[in-house]
């Protein structure tokens, strides 16, 4: 696999995870503040734009690789969420999360070698 392909896989995952977090924040903000404000609308617009970027990058990758090759990489999104939760929300990582993340990473390495 080329460096370019790997970069696109990572970008499509990161944009997807970022979109999820931004949309989640926007929905929480809308509960007390309503939806007719520029903060909410701009966040939703950014979230939708990021998801669109992720979708099209995936479509470009699917033209080049097996689905059974690309699909396991989605497991990495879980690791990005774990890291974000630890960094942004100062969550403590449990042993269970750490072992799970290691297994996912090992699995991805095997798939990329296949």
């Amino acid at each position, binding site marked *: 696999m080329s460096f370019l392909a790997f970069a696109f896989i990572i970008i499509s995952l990161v944009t997807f995870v970022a979109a999820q977090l931004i949309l989640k924040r926007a929905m929480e903000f809308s509960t007390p503040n309503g939806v007719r404000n520029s903060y909410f609308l701009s966040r939703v617009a950014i979230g939708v734009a990021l998801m669109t970027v992720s979708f099209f990058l995936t*479509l*470009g990758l699917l*033209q080049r690789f097996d689905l059974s090759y690309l699909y396991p990489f989605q497991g990495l999104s879980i690791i990005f969420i774990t890291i974000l939760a630890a960094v942004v929300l100062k969550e403590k990582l449990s042993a269970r999360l750490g072992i799970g993340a290691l297994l996912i*990473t090992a*699995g*991805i390495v095997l798939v990329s070698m296949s």
Partner: protein
Amino acid sequence: MQNRPSGFGNPWLQLGLSVACVFVSELLLKRGATDVAAPDSAFSWTGINGLASPLVWWAILLIIASFISWLYVLRYIPLSVAYPLSRVVDIVVPLGCWIFLGELISALRWCGIALVVIGLALVAKPIAQMEERL
């Protein structure tokens, strides 16, 4: 979780529908992308040329449908239960690739997929609990 509707409104049925929509949409996206693949053009890295395939449009409709069912599921089932169950797609998608797309999956790739699935099973519940707090 009280007053759970039955019939088509049953949230467990909707969870199953959501997973089925994701599964079918992934296979349609792969088929559609292969049909119009232009790996020699740099522009095709953007994936926008994929819109030329009708299968891709069907897949987009299914993604929207799965999203609506998923939002409905979240009204009735806690994320820490629904999310780990939804990861069953990580098992059915590779199986679908093998059965319906005829992809040859080597022993090495099967082992990698298995490790990812076991890892996801370990982290799915703590992650969902984290998300509920996010």
